[in-house]
């Protein structure tokens, strides 16, 4: 059925609003714009893993700045997804030290196993593949980051399978940035 109503304007949940109020306390009153990056992280977590123009407008309104001030920032930083993404965004490190320990092979394997190419989302909507630069975990390369978790030493098919299995079984619910999945974060 086709909807005739205008899209509902996004609103922050009470929990997010409380977190945003706490963040504003961190900066001088006339410098609330400082809270832009932390609030964008909250917005991305609240609204499905990406920041639509409407969500960015909400961020601008919340801080009291112009929408363009949000757009120019969200497009500068790689962590903000400007298009819809799957349930899990797999950020594969492709930089030198990871490449030395097999990140090219890892990317090829993930493309094969998920059915998505880098930059795409798998047909089942579960996985979006994204290539990123050094994630400060080069000692346990090659690595993939999914939200707050680092999957390290993904240099065997077993390790990659175990990662995908864990993610497939993860109870899906919207997670705010300050909530954690409860998985171990990192070996180091």
């Amino acid at each position: 059925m086709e909807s005739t109503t205008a899209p509902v304007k996004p609103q922050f949940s009470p929990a997010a609003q409380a977190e945003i109020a706490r963040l504003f306390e961190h900066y001088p009153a006339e410098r609330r714009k400082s809270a832009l990056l932390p609030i964008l992280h909250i917005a991305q977590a609240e609204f499905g893993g990406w920041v639509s123009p409407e969500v960015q407008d909400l961020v601008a309104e919340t801080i009291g700045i112009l929408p363009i001030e949000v757009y120019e920032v969200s497009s500068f930083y790689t962590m903000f997804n400007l298009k819809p993404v799957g349930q899990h965004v797999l950020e594969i490190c492709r930089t030198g030290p990871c490449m030395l320990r097999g990140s090219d092979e890892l990317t090829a394997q993930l493309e094969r196993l998920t059915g998505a190419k880098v930059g795409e989302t798998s047909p089942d909507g579960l996985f979006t593949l994204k290539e990123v630069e050094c994630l400060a975990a080069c000692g346990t390369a090659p690595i993939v980051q999914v939200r707050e978790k680092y999957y390290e030493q993904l240099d065997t098919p077993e390790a990659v399978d175990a990662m995908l299995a864990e993610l497939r079984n993860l109870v899906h619910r919207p997670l705010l940035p300050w909530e954690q999945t409860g998985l171990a974060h990192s070996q180091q």
Partner: protein
Amino acid sequence: MGRKLLTEHINVPGIDTFEVYRKHGGYRSVEKALKTMTPDEVVEEVKKSGLRGRGGAGFPTGMKWSFLAKPVGVPRYLVCNADESEPGTFKDRHLMSRLPHLLIEGMITSSYALGANTSYIYIRGELLYVLRILEKAIAEAYANGFLGKNILGSGYDLDLHVHPGGGAYICGEETALLESLEGKRGNPRNKPPFPAVQGLYARPTVVNNVESISAVVPIINDGGEEYAKLGVGKSTGTKLISACGHLNKPGIYEIELGVPVEEFIYSDEYCGGIWKGRDLKAVVAGGSSVPILPKELILKTAAGENRLMTYESLSDGGFVTGTMLGSGGFIAMDETTCIVRNTWSFSRFYHHESCGQCSPCREGTGWLEKVLHRLEHGHGHMHDIDLLVSVAKQIEGNTICPLGEAAAWPVAAAVRHFRHEFEWHVTNPAEATRPGAYYSSKAAVGV
């Protein structure tokens, strides 16, 4: 075993909690500084220690602190650079996630020395879990009277906040970091004015690396002179080296500055040698921005002396035969490494991370990547090799911030020391572009 000043207690269970950290001598530097020292005396101890910035540039920390402008009635800031994004560097993440209170203690003692009443830890956004660890530890420090109003009854007030970035290597550059902390794109600022005069919110500001600020703790506890007894010459104290690449035991090692490079690579106390019983081909010793050196030159200087893990020894010979200690990101490459491919990968990184403000960097990094891509993929010409050197030269010295040089130096060094590998890609494109192919002086080609 060298002495460990930062990581001595890192494996103690529960050391990330206030209680256990305190039991192991934590927060003594705050008590000592606030109760028995003036801020200037703290700065003096840091000067005496000879501590040099651990973020990459190696600038003496005490001297940097003494440059901070102190106009009356104007707030000033200490900002910790926890953006850690230099490829090959992963020590700050380790230090913060395992010993969050060490950084917080260092921030309190350092903020007191600088007269800052609000301080920030700017952490790269990807390290969300570390941000939560730090926030928990900060809450504990507040609850125990080490942060907030009138700390330990000294009359000194300090608020400390953690601030996440959004994913941009350039925000590690200190003025880009300040722009980012103000909620803007991370475009580096023109200097002067320097942050010491006009930094965060145009107020006087000091920006220091996580490891530098953590090192203030043992310096104040034991005295600057004691700290300076460790190390060699102007490379005092200990340094965290994050070792990666083709090593048997990659990881984070706190070394006393002065360990021979050969010992660091091959001894079991450190990296345990090259993996799979292979030979070493090259090392990038201080993060991807420093010049690459072939095995012979990383182990010994051009004059045949043992190369040591110090600022001076690693830079012996300048850029012709030397390199830099940089951030301590130590990347080892075995004999099967393709230097052209590796150089291309790093160029892609710098091109991707250029903020685009100045044309020599924006266009130059693009050219470097493009030319390296075609050499690596078998479409290069002999003159492309000199083109790389020429583009690198045109970037150097012509940009707002040092990212331009960081992109140019490694390419120039790779061509300087491994020109034969680049030529081989031009003369033998079919072989060189086979997956996994690498140039070897022993066999013509290996796969």
